[in-house]
């Protein structure tokens, strides 16, 4: 089960109408779904909406009470295809995934869904993973909304607005027979706030009704001639209906519309930071009472021409605050104003950067530039805050400049005791023997291999596409093989077919390592088909090896303990050098340590408290034999393997040390053996609640060892004061 538990929080989903909900954005979204009477929800985990999936899983009982079906979809394409249930039936459904990576995968289903349109409200909640903290390529979901002509909501990032957007999204979807995308940026997903709840609604028309009274309407199926008509329908019916709905229901908001002869048009998600920037410039108060007219686009696609013309008429200039590129909205704005012959100047990417997240400082500087251009007299007489202007590097305080080189980047990396680390240690050792290989990586924690200390991996082409990314590097002209990676998550997402099946069919001679840690670990420890644990609402324990053999791989080796570096190394060497032709797959299994610790630590504590014999293991380094070369760290990179000042008065280089966070995974010992490093590592076995036999044995040992240690002490006596 997932890394974070929402078991307690999900009780808030039962709140009745009128009660105040306090909590996180994703929980509010879930509550809004229940208030909207959904019949089914599905999705694929990944930041920023991983926790939305976890909330749904933990709320499964509550969902079941309301007759809602919930699925962990195999992929984002599966999730989006799930919305097909709303094509013919008046069923409301919602799916969620990370965007744009998930939207890319979902595109095929999305295009088909959007073509035929829907009868029941269909909501796609995308976690916009853009900017700081993002783990993916920097693209926008906006383009997908445009190309498939689905409507895109971008509500103001506070709980009441987000909840309202969910409810309005379903209505908009039904009013226009079009799926609707709701875009939530990462901080909005995890923003803590409050809203007044409504009662949950059990859908009037249920899944059971749909199954028992099947319907079909051939005009909704994507096949000519219906598909030609779909395009016409999109333009002639659905789009105008959407514009009308947005206008009539006032989904977009105007603030202080006529307060001045300039204004700002902004994506809803930008609202809070725009207000803060204005507040710092003395142009708004904390409650959002602004002196600058604002037009807030809670729907960023489609735009409502009338509203834009209305807002811009009588204004000298407007600023378009649009995060990300290309500047779809700004271009659209120009076109709308040109068509309406409104002469308002449009600013946007000229004062704000074209690319990158609009963080606080960027927003403040951009808006300051705009106000300076159009209404400098509005700026405070005392001058703008220092942060409103870029500071040239040489103008910074000397003490701060002197510090620059002392701040290193600190990217995420493998956790303490991570079972994936030894796989890369083994690769380093094999590299020493056989030279470097081309390595194709995948998405998942294992991608941290590209960073120090391992520096392994050349490309990553997407989730599950590790082996596909090495497909071309397959020739009889060399004996050297390539190595590819794939995690269990990526494997089940699509890697089984896109990678393994492809390699079998195309007669590859190369090597694939499947990192099987029992979870979709990087997204928060959700279960997958091959998870070892039992899951009450899912079917697990379907081994990857069976699947791999099932599609025709002959050479398969499963290593059930990745920490055995020498076995890992020998198996990898064999895969790279064996005369056997054909695809070679190594399945490297060990449970994700983060999840294992979460599972085992409380059990262990309880066992100790109840008086049971419990053995805890951890590693240590003898600082008097460590010479401070740090080879061990370069082959491991474990957070709990660190350095400390050398206690030896004659030495200056810091020695290695094992922090108390060590979980005793065993890698340090294996590395010092396999790489013939140094004898400084020791493993301590600490036995709590020892048995009588334990104590007796310890006593005998202490007597003999103590006797000999007395002799050693005698030799050393007189050397120190």
């Amino acid at each position, binding site marked *: 089960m997932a890394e974070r538990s929402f078991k307690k929080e999900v009780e808030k989903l039962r709140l009745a109408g009128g009660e105040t909900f306090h909590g996180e954005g994703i929980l509010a979204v879930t509550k809004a779904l229940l208030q909207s009477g959904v019949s089914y929800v599905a999705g694929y985990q990944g930041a920023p909406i991983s926790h939305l999936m976890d909330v749904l899983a933990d709320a499964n009982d509550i969902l079941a009470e309301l007759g809602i079906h919930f699925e962990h979809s195999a992929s984002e394409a599966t999730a989006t295809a799930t919305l097909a249930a709303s094509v013919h039936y008046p069923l409301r459904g919602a799916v969620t995934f990370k965007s744009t990576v998930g939207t890319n995968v979902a595109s095929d289903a999305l295009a088909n869904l959007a073509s035929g349109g829907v009868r029941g409200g269909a909501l796609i909640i995308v976690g916009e993973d853009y900017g700081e*903290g993002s783990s993916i390529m920097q693209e926008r979901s906006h383009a997908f909304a445009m190309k498939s002509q689905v409507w895109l909501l971008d509500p103001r*990032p*506070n709980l009441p607005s987000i909840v309202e957007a969910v409810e309005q999204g379903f209505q908009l979807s039904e009013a226009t027979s079009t799926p609707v995308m709701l875009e939530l940026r990462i*901080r*909005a997903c*995890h*923003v*803590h706030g409050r809203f007044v709840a409504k009662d949950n609604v059990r859908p009037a028309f249920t899944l059971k009704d749909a199954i028992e009274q099947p319907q079909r309407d051939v005009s909704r199926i994507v096949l000519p001639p219906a598909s030609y008509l779909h395009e016409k329908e999109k333009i002639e019916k659905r789009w105008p209906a959407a514009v009308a709905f947005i206008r009539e229901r006032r989904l977009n908001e105007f603030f202080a519309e006529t307060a001045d002869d300039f204004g700002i048009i902004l994506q809803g998600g930008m609202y*809070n*930071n725009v*207000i803060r920037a204005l507040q*710092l410039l003395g142009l708004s*108060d*904390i*409650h959002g009472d602004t002196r600058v007219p604002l037009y807030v686009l809670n729907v960023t696609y489609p735009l409502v021409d009338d509203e834009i013309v209305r807002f811009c008429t009588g204004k000298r200039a407007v600023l378009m605050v649009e995060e990300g590129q290309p500047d779809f909205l700004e271009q659209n704005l120009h076109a709308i104003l040109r068509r309406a012959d409104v002469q308002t100047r449009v600013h946007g990417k000229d004062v704000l950067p074209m690319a990158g997240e609009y*963080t606080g400082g960027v927003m403040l500087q951009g808006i300051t530039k705009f106000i300076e251009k159009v209404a400098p007299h509005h700026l405070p007489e005392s001058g703008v805050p*220092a*942060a409103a202007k870029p500071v040239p590097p040489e103008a910074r305080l*000397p003490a*701060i400049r002197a*510090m620059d*080189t*002392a*701040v290193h980047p*600190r*990217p*995420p*990396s*493998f956790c303490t005791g991570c079972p994936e680390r030894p796989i890369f240690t083994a690769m380093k050792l094999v590299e020493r023997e056989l030279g470097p290989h081309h390595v194709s990586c995948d998405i998942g924690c294992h991608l941290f291999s590209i960073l*120090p*200390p391992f520096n392994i991996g050349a490309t990553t082409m997407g989730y599950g596409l590790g082996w596909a990314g090495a497909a071309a590097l397959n020739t009889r002209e060399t004996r050297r093989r390539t190595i590819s990676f794939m995690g269990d998550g990526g494997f089940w997402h699509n890697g089984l077919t896109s990678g393994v099946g492809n390699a079998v069919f195309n007669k590859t001679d190369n090597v694939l390592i499947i990192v099987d840690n029992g979870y979709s670990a990087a997204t928060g420890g959700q279960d997958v088909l091959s998870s070892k644990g039992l899951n009450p609402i899912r079917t697990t324990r379907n081994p990857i090896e069976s699947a791999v053999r099932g599609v025709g791989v002959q050479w398969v080796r499963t290593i059930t303990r990745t920490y055995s570096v020498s076995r890992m190394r020998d198996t990898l060497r064999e895969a790279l050098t064996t005369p056997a032709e054909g695809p070679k797959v190594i399945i490297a299994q060990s449970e994700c340590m983060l999840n294992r610790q979460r599972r085992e630590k409380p059990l262990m504590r309880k066992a100790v408290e109840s008086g049971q014999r419990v053995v805890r293991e951890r590693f*240590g380094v*003898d600082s*008097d*034999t460590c*010479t401070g*070369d*740090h080879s061990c*760290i370069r082959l491991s990179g474990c*957070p709990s393997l*660190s350095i400390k000042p050398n206690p030896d008065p*004659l030495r200056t*280089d*810091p020695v290695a040390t094992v922090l*108390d966070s060590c979980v005793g995974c065993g890698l340090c010992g294996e590395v010092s*053996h396999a790489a013939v490093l*140094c004898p400084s590592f*020791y493993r*301590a*076995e*600490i036995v709590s609640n*020892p048995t009588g036999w*334990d104590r007796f044995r310890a006593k005998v*040992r202490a007597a*003999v*060892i103590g006797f000999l*240690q007395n002799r050693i002490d005698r030799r050393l006596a*007189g*050397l*120190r004061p």
Partner: protein
Amino acid sequence: MSAPGRSFNVAILAMGGEGGGVLADWLVDLAEHNGYFAQTTSVPGVAQRTGATIYYVEMFPDARDGRTPVFALMPFPGDVDVVIASELMEAGRAIQRGFVTPDRTVFITSTHRVFSMTEKIAMGDGRVDADKLLEAGRAAARKLIVADFADAAERTGSVISAALFGALAASDETPFLPEAFEAAIRRGGVGVNTSLAAFAEGARLAAQPTAPSVVEALIEPPPSAVGRLLQPLAERIRCDFPAAAQRTLVAGIERLADYQDVAYAEAYLDRLAPLAALERDSGDARCRLLVETARHLALWLSYEDTIRVADLKTRRSRFDRVRAEVRSKPDQVLGIHEFMHPRLEEIADTLPEGLGRWLLATPWARNLVGRFSREGRVVRTSTVRGFLLLYFVASLRRIRRGTLRARIEMQRIDGWFATVTEVARTDYELAIAVASCQRLVKGYGDTHARGWRNFESLMNALPRLRGRADAAIQLRRLTEAALADEHGNALSAAREEIAA
């Protein structure tokens, strides 16, 4: 406190898994229970995997007029009342990002270090200068509150977030009383007692006046007292060697007597005596050549052979240290297992010279011994059998001077020492640099072999450097290059550059 009409803003810079989220949740709970609106945002996901991340909290009094504040989703430079950094480099990051400003920000940071990967993987000393980070904090903030809050958390058996929460309460910068903070911890309901203890300790540390920046003692402290057996040698050091070098020399004789015996330590002083004479003419008050050579000579003479390792691993002081390090309580039974991998080379090294050379040169013997040394061994020092094995190896100290390893090391030391002395006659600075090259020869097995190769490479480069005005600087550059990477790329590049 923030100006009227403004929210009170707190940014928490932490690393994944440090409890920054718990701290943010406490703050929200604290605010909401005391009549405030509050909002927290964070960026979870991969940042949880030990990466650097920011938790951000804003709060504003609820006037009960139905109006809600609009909170920013991320810190704006110049708009942060309190910045809390869970570690010193993260404190530096907060400054770099402009969150800490002298007109507004109270800056609470823990002084402990969680070393970055770059610092850890260096082949020598890659640590950054912590004082620079502290100085920058002092320059950037309105008020700086620093202490080792990680230590406070550890002493109280809690997490750093609780200690930092205490520091925030004690800072007197929030609208809330310390009791209200404690109530928030209680409501949190997880690890309440230890959290409260850490909270109190954090508050206590924060209330103390900030300690002045650590200034390195400029005066060399006197050498430490020595044991009875070393008194005559210590006396000799006092009479025959300059004061500036005495501390190092005393450390040297202690180390070598511990390593072998008092005679070995005496020989060390004999060897250094001419250098002391030479130093008298150098005019360097700090006697850097003597100090550096004495330091490196002591280290080289106490090379880490299997005998030394076994000796150190079997001592009572070592058993006690392990017990303390792994926090084994008196009622627990402790087992200590060593990871050793003596190869053929190390076995030959420990044999008398002739036998050792024979073993290395005799194929069938090599094969035989090699078969037993292919795999690493786990020696259980806490058992009688394991201890006896190591005790026996340690006892070979008596024959150490005749072993193959001793012969090889002595030859190498002689060569290096002769070079130092010889170079010193013409170029004092270069001689120091040559002495410092010993730094490269460290570790075991392949690491040691690589270090020796690099050392030799530098010694081969030496003749070309001699006579150049910047010879010492160039040799130091080569030493740094040798420590830059494992493959010797930087060293080759540096050598080529010098040759050109």
